[in-house]
């Protein structure tokens, strides 16, 4: 029982990062129908920004803040410089543009910074562990979970209560009809990329705090995780993305804990197989509507 609770706590902490990650990817997909595979590079940009900021002598926390902002700025630039000029060219064109963007950014990190990992030492306090009824809970897990939950809460509040949030919810349902009400498409889309970038930045800080390093391909796992969570939750559903993130995070932790030691290296593969099984039973994902083809 203690073992189970212990894994559940670890799973919730990891899942909360996945949830923030997935929500950021789902934001842009929901508004524009773009699956932005360069989203993972926003995590790397957060990481490198944190690396340079800490190298310059700034504190970890200030560096984290700047890193998150950098991801938001980078996300907005992606829209302005890459996706906006390609607007109206179709899903596959935009998908490949995002792949290309991802490769270009990884190349830049490799050539301009270094192919090797750069360390970003997290503060000592985060690695502290306190014991509670036989459970060992790290400060990092608690901080991660709290920051993720507060972020998700603020995001929900913004979408529920603000004018811009209402515009974005309407735009995600039917962009043309929303524009026919006088809502500027450009503004809504830019806001979607900004929010996507902020969420990537927050998830990036939490991710980097966990790994302690940044490499040119740091974004590879986060984008895969976000994509899987979004599909698991149901493409186009922000609630689904969040739930999908938690489910996938918990699943991964439990597989790692309970799989026979010989197959633990394959835990990620097993997690993906489990997701495939879920999608076999519910092709539209946990919270998705029956698939509609957008004309």
């Amino acid at each position, binding site marked *: 029982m203690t073992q189970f609770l212990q894994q559940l706590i670890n799973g919730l902490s990891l899942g909360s990062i996945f949830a923030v990650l997935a929500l950021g990817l789902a934001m842009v997909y929901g508004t524009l129908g773009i699956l932005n595979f360069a989203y993972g590079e926003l995590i790397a940009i957060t990481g490198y920004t944190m690396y340079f900021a800490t190298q310059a002598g700034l504190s970890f926390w200030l560096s984290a803040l700047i890193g998150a902002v950098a991801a938001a700025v980078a996300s907005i630039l992606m829209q302005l410089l890459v996706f906006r000029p390609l607007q109206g060219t179709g899903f596959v064109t935009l998908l490949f543009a995002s792949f290309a963007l991802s490769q270009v950014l990884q190349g830049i990190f490799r050539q301009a910074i270094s192919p090797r990992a750069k360390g970003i030492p997290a503060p000592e306090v985060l690695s502290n562990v306190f014991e509670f009824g036989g459970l060992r809970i790290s400060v990092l897990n608690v901080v991660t979970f709290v920051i993720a939950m507060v972020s998700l809460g603020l995001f929900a509040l913004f979408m529920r209560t603000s004018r811009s949030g209402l515009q974005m919810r309407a735009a995600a349902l039917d962009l043309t009809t929303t524009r*026919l009400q006088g809502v500027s498409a450009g503004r809504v889309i830019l806001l979607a990329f900004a929010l996507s970038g902020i969420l990537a930045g927050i998830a990036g800080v939490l991710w980097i705090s966990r790994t302690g390093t940044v490499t040119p391909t740091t974004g590879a796992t986060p984008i895969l995780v976000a994509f899987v969570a979004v599909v698991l939750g149901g493409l186009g559903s922000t609630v689904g993305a969040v739930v999908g993130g938690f489910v996938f995070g918990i699943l991964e932790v439990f597989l790692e804990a309970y799989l026979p030691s010989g197959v633990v290296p394959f835990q990620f593969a097993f997690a993906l197989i489990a997701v495939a099984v879920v999608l076999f039973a519910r092709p539209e994902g946990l919270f998705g509507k029956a698939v509609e083809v957008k004309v």
Partner: protein
Amino acid sequence: MGEQLVTSSSSTASTVVADQPVIAVTSLTVRYGAVTALREVSLEVGRGEIVGVLGPNGAGKSTLMRTIAGVHKPVTGQVLLEGRPVVGGAPEKAARAGLRLVPEGRRIFGPLTVEENLRIGSMSRGSTLKDDLEAAYDRFPILGERRSQSAGTLSGGEQQQLAIARALMAHPTVILYDEPSLGLAPRIVDQIFELIAHLRDEGVTSVLVEQNARLALDLSDRAYVLGSGSITASGKSSDLAKIDLAQLYLGKGAQR
């Protein structure tokens, strides 16, 4: 952004400002890929008029409405709204200039509440005034009762009311109604048409697209008949009403 539209562009400078058409469409051609949806369509809508646009399925009526509203970019020709060109591909601009489309199939935001749907209608006005919401609920009491319900749970007639109420939140000068009777019971259709007439009396210029030609000719002052992308007949609705509909749709109409 309630612009006082009194200026006239050079192309209509010869007309007196008060007589300037609210909508002037000149030789509009719209294509979807290789398919020509509209061919050299011209029409005018004067202030305070109800103008009908009739025609069989697939004649291009919805395309014409959506092009006037700025959704589509025409290949040739242009749409002037109060003398200013409508930018194709930027429907938000026409919306801010005082035009509203009540689209075919109503296109309400089903998962959002009735009140949220109304709030979106007022987005071009900078803020949602409590008075506007109250006015909407006075006019459509059923929407007031269901204000916190998700709009998708409303009946077809209620959804049509919501679509019109959403348009009214912007205090529009022109409303384009695209098939407002579609899928509604006759009694409800009568109510909707009474409402359209009433709104005209309040000064809202209206364009009414209908497959149900009888209804449209009863309500409108003038009408145009569209057949496979071109205007095949036009004239006063009372004159058009005397002609056999099949003939009308085949293009043997009045003047032209």
